[in-house]
């Protein structure tokens, strides 16, 4: 039971990380109609900048503003130089231009930091475990990620539903042309949304630092999963992205935790482990395929 709860928390933690990325991606998709493959690169930039500053200064806390600032800056620059030219182009152009960005960023990071992964140690405050239930010890750092993620989700909910900017964002994702026709400075709104998305991606990247290796290519791994989240949740829907992230995080984590064990009962050890790992990696894609076949526009978009 404690093992199950631990896996559940791990799933939620992974889901929350996915949400931080998916929220930005789905907004960029929904409002600007741009498929941004470079979102994973922004995540990587946040991770590198934050981790590097934290390692140089020796203070984990200084890494946070550094990571966030670098990611947001990268996002605004990307929007200004490249993505701005892609509005209204077809998806193919968007995929390829942002694919080009991935190549550029990956190589630039390799040139700056080399191929060795960077590491950052956790601050003393967040190191260690806490006993949540009798017998259930859970790392404080992972709990902190969950809390931050849920706070961001709440903040986004308030931002989107209670403020004027949020109103424009909602209007923009429903009918872009109408918002423009009503005299809203759409370009500013676009830059703002893109920057916000980048900021969240950077936050996710920095928080991933102490538990995953900060290395080139970290962005692509999580990017594809994030796209799965966005598509399952429904393009443009933050609420959809939130629930899809949690579902996917939990499904992925539990498959990885339990499938090899189940397979080992019918197969030889090492082969079962390999096959289990393979099938667990397939799990989320299978889930997406099933969801799309039943609801072609995603779970949280009403079919019109």
């Amino acid at each position: 039971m404690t093992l199950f709860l631990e896996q559940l928390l791990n799933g939620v933690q992974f889901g929350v990380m996915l949400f931080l990325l998916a929220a930005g991606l789905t907004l960029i998709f929904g409002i600007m109609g741009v498929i941004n493959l470079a979102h994973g690169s922004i995540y990587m930039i946040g991770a590198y900048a934050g981790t590097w500053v934290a390692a140089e200064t020796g203070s984990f806390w200084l890494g946070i503003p550094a990571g966030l600032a670098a990611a947001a800056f990268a996002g605004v620059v990307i929007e200004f130089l490249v993505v701005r030219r892609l509005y209204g182009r077809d998806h193919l152009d968007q995929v390829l231009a942002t694919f080009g960005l991935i190549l550029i960023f990956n190589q630039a990071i390799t040139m700056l930091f080399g191929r060795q992964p960077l590491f950052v140690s956790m601050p003393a405050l967040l190191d260690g475990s806490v006993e949540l239930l009798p017998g259930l010890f859970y790392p404080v750092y992972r709990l902190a990620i969950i809390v931050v993620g849920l706070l961001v989700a709440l903040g986004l909910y308030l931002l989107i539903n209670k403020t004027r900017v949020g109103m424009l964002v909602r209007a923009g994702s429903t009918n872009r042309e109408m918002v423009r026709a009503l005299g809203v400075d759409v370009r500013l709104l676009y830059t703002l949304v893109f920057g916000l998305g980048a900021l969240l991606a950077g936050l996710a990247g920095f928080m991933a630092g102490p538990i995953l290796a900060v290395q080139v290519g970290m962005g692509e791994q999580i990017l594809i999963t994030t796209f799965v989240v966005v598509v399952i949740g429904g393009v443009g829907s933050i609420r959809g992205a939130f629930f899809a992230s949690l579902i996917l995080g939990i499904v992925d984590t539990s498959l990885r935790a339990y499938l090899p064990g189940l397979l080992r009962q019918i197969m030889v050890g090492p082969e079962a482990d390999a096959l289990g790992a393979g099938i667990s990696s397939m799990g989320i894609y299978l889930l997406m395929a099933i969801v799309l076949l039943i609801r072609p526009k995603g779970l949280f978009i009403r079919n019109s």
Partner: protein
Amino acid sequence: MEKSLKRPALLAALLIALIALPTVADAAGFAALTSLATRVLIYGIAAASLNFVLGYGGMVSFGHAAFFGIGGYTVGILYQHYSLGEPLFGFIPGTNQMLITLPVAVVLSGIMAAIIGALSLRTGGVQFIMITLAFAQMLFFLFVSLKTYGGDDGLIIRRANELPWLNMRDKHTVYYVCLAIAVLFFAVLWRLVNSRFGNVIVGLRQSEKRMAAIGLPAYRYKLVAFIISGMGCGLAGALMANFLRFASPDMMHWTKSGELMIMVILGGVGTLFGPLIGAAVFIVLESVLASWTENWQLGLGLILLFVVLYTQGGVQALGARLVGRSA
């Protein structure tokens, strides 16, 4: 009149150049050029197949590497069972005869394309891009986890498949085999594109509603186009496995799908020979940049960005515009 003669003449010249290439390359001391050209031909076939759905049909598939990989693994798995002498599933004997492995690869990738296409084509737009990507990733992870067939490390094919009366260990022979297959492939593709079927596919890209109004079943046409395209990629994958004597999950990694798309857009979307030109540009760029600097991906990324943002229609259109301007 002048224009109608120009194209066949250009193609004949290209064909003669390609036939002469290994001899010229050896004489000039660039023996590596033959291998480079073989890769261009193989990727040209794959990219042209992708272009059939992407450029003509407007279906942006981000998962065509799956079919490329299935073609490669068909050759690899059949070879492994041939060399170990134990039949696949206990009753399918392995083989190293190209006359068998290529058709099998084409048929298997066609079947896989039928399954993936039938499911994916129910969606459209972004969802279509993502679901094709998802299926390709599923296959990627499946092959990564199959330890029997090399898993992560891939499958080494010790000798290229045999063809009767030919010495397939000779690099030149492999090149000519690929060239012959490529010529056949492009001839078939040319017939297909200019057929009624090809016109319907282009029509579907322009307006699915209009085609439906004429009374054409859009879904079925798209599915057949998707299957044909998958078969072409499978053929290319089978050739690639023969050329590299290696099949690995990397063949179906999503970046490979991306590379195929890059070739299509570099050469020019929706043109018959554009993807071949694109494949040539991509492979030559990759090797030239890689020989200059370790950081070749940076250059490639910048070029890709430039092509997408500033040229409409890829290298071919750029060339045509430059020629048009100087004339």
